[in-house]
């Protein structure tokens, strides 16, 4: 899976550079998030702007990261959702759970 992680102060930004986030590759994103949490990261932003398709496994990995961040008194936020990806968050009501921003810059401004 093509992921790029960048530090921005105490926030880690993970760029998911894949067209699909699904049952085939989403565990790798979970592994990367868990690595960051174990290193002491509390705040993660995931940029999904290159992701055109997400399934229940991809959503589940994001929920797992959200819960993990919450138990560490941190946060996991999202940005760059394409229309079809956003529709999956709405279908599963997860748009009410996550803080979702248009861009990385917009997310940074809110912090």
């Amino acid at each position: 899976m093509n992921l790029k992680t960048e530090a921005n102060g105490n926030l880690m930004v993970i760029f998911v550079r894949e067209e699909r986030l699904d049952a085939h590759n989403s565990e790798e994103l979970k592994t990367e998030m868990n690595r960051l949490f174990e290193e002491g990261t509390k705040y993660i932003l995931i940029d999904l702007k290159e992701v055109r398709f997400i399934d229940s496994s991809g959503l589940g990995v994001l929920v797992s990261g959200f819960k993990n961040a919450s138990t560490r008194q941190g946060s996991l936020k999202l940005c760059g959702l394409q229309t079809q990806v956003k529709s999956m968050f709405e279908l599963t009501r997860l748009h009410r759970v996550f803080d979702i921003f248009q861009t990385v810059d917009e997310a940074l401004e809110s912090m």
Partner: protein
Amino acid sequence: MKNTIKLDIKVPNQTRYLCLIGKIGEDMARELDHFKGDREALAHHLNVVLTEAMVNAIRHANAADPDKEVEIRISISDKEISIKVYDSGQGFDITAIPDPCFDPAKLDDKGRGIFIIRSLMDSVEYRKIKGGNILEMKKALA
């Protein structure tokens, strides 16, 4: 003029084929010249349903055995989409799968696949057949 497309696909029981199967569903939806609704939304929904159904067969029915096979039959006419996913595993009780919890304080990582399929299709059935099980999903188009 007869305007039905039928496709019968067999792939190994591995998640690497999810993308291929999903894209086939998308391309089939785009061939529906007479469909009056949002064809791109329908193409996305077919990609989602095929992906979820195949993951379900791989993990829960075929118990992640990479030597098994998943067979998928797709039939699309101007009136209806029918998708049948065959597995050769032990199967599971679809009626015992509850909708996911929507309370943000009680979120579960898993358990959204069947809910998503039920939300996007008109009917969903899972039943035993000789040598395995079949997940049958239908959606009216007209």
